[in-house]
């Protein structure tokens, strides 16, 4: 306790305060640089070799509308412009979405083990996708097939169901949400298993969705998912104060001026919308949404003002590199790559963090 006459120290007396304040900027710049490298590598490399000069030429002629002398074939142009670029950008958008949704759900539920799929979005999307595969009707609207639509609706519908069911009974809202999410998720997993059992030859299609892939990325699908994800992420960023207040618990958050009931619904809706948009175009890709926010928190602390934007940046970079690795390894599922990168990385971080994570 300070004695009465003691001089109040200025903020700069914190040890290495300058370093701590600069660190997020350094990390942000490093993330942007990594993302630029990921973009270049993702567009530049693939199963068909395209010379860097040609790739650059195709991009400048398409993006800037410059009249570059064509030294490449129409097929090469299609590979770079219609296959690789939308694929890389989709990976980035999905990486942004899953990482931010993970940070949102972890902060909202005050649970370090939460991920974007914790409230039933994954099982809802999977069940929706499986039902779409089983229905022998093919509808395509603006490049979105039945599978994308059903996955999106399944993800959103399951969160709405979890939220409404969780309000029955007198349990604490957060515990109730988590348990209801688990219960409903299990039920939908049973439905998914049944659908897979019935699917016969279409099993592979369901399986591909479950493992996640950017194989089917296109400009049209990107144009559908990107606005939802990016607007959702910006809105989550605007709720940073609420996420920060929730660090000390819902009651204390309320005492710090957070309208907890309203923010809970808002963040739940935003996190679910972002997740649904992401899984509709990519399938279920694990670990990015769980690991990236933790890595960011270990680097800059729990302040949501830093955690959300840096998670977006790191999520985009990680997903792009993971997809590139998946392509280079002969189109293996990207979810396998994120798990292989994410799980050991997470374990190392857990060992290095001094307190670990309590449940």
């Amino acid at each position, binding site marked *: *306790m*300070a004695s*009465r006459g*003691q001089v*109040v*120290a*200025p*903020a700069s*007396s*914190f*040890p290495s305060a300058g370093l701590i304040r600069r660190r997020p900027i350094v990390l942000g710049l490093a993330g942007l640089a990594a993302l630029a490298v990921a973009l270049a590598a993702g567009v530049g490399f693939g199963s068909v070799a395209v010379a860097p000069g040609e790739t650059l030429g195709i991009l400048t002629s398409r993006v800037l509308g410059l009249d570059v002398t064509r030294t490449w074939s129409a097929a090469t142009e299609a590979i770079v412009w219609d296959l690789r670029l939308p694929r890389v950008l989709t990976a980035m958008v999905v990486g942004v979405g899953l990482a931010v949704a993970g940070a949102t759900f*972890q902060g909202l539920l*005050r*649970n*370090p083990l939460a991920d974007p799929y914790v409230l039933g979005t994954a099982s809802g999307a999977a069940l929706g996708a499986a039902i779409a595969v089983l229905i022998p009707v093919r509808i395509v609207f603006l490049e979105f097939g039945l599978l994308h639509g059903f996955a999106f609706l399944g993800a959103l519908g399951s969160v709405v169901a979890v939220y409404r069911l969780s309000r029955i009974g*007198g349990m604490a809202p957060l515990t109730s949400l988590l348990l209801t999410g688990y219960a409903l998720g299990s039920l939908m997993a049973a439905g998914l298993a049944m659908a897979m059992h019935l699917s016969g030859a279409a099993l592979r299609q369901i399986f591909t969705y479950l493992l996640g892939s950017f194989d089917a990325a296109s400009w049209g699908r990107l144009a559908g998912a990107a606005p939802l994800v990016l607007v959702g992420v910006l809105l989550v960023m*605007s709720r*940073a*104060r609420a996420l*920060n*207040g929730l*660090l*000390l*618990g819902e*009651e*204390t958050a*309320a*005492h*710090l*001026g*957070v*309208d*907890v009931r309203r923010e809970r619904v808002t963040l739940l809706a935003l996190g679910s919308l972002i997740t649904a948009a992401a899984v509709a175009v990519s399938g279920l890709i694990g670990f990015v949404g769980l690991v990236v926010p933790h890595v960011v*928190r*270990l680097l800059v*602390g*729990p*302040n949501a*003002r830093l955690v959300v934007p840096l998670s977006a940046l790191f999520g985009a970079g990680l997903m792009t590199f993971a997809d590139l690795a998946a392509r280079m390894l002969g189109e293996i599922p990207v979810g396998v790559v994120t798990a292989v990168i994410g799980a050991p990385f997470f374990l190392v971080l857990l060992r290095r*963090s*001094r*307190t670990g*994570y*309590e449940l």
Partner: protein
Amino acid sequence: MTRPAIELRGVTAGYAGRAVIRDVTLSVDAGERVALVGPNGAGKSTLLRLVTGLLRPTAGEVLLDGVGIASLSREAIARRIAVVPQVAQLPFSARVEQVVALGRLPHENPLRGPRPADHAAVAAAIERVGLSALVGRDARELSLGERQLVLVAVAVAQAAPVVLLDEPTVHLDIRHQVDVMDLLADLNRREGATIVAVLHDLHLAARSFTRIVVLAEGRVAADGPPDVALSPDRIRDVFRVDPWVVGAAAWASVPPR
């Protein structure tokens, strides 16, 4: 005429239809220092929840500075009242100064975040509560008592004219109990802060507070200066122990059987 900082008019409230607070009328003027005492289940914490607007009364009304609490936003309440909870669980590791900085949330622009004045207020709060040695430490590694001091620092950083404390000294050793009480007295004298603290320790209440409100079975059983509100008869009535009054500074020692 100045309005009381906190005013309860005929308030009844509780949980799931069971009334915990019954027809309580109570007002606290700005600059008062009030200890709220009473046996377990008397409704002390419920009373605090009413004053912060977390619980709505089933009858009567709660006013802050003469304004009905139902018409105030959470943010407006947080700028008037800082609350020190008993404990708080952190789901992620956070350094002490990062936790104390949360006290500035009600003053922050939601989009722009903290400004230099907020950083200065955080540093001053850390210094004033005597936590400088803990800066940089993970708040989850601290002892319960140290964490309680961090929560006191959060409230000091919040710089609200009213500070409510829910048993702020349960995890503190006797030295830190006295330090926290002296800090509250200092906030009261220098900043004119209104202090309302729920306390179990009657010694501490009598030593550090000028007004004692005794709550029993959801009603105000006594209200006045320590020697009146905590008379031996009252303690016997309310707490069902036989007190042993040792001088003016140490009320209600209970003798060994």
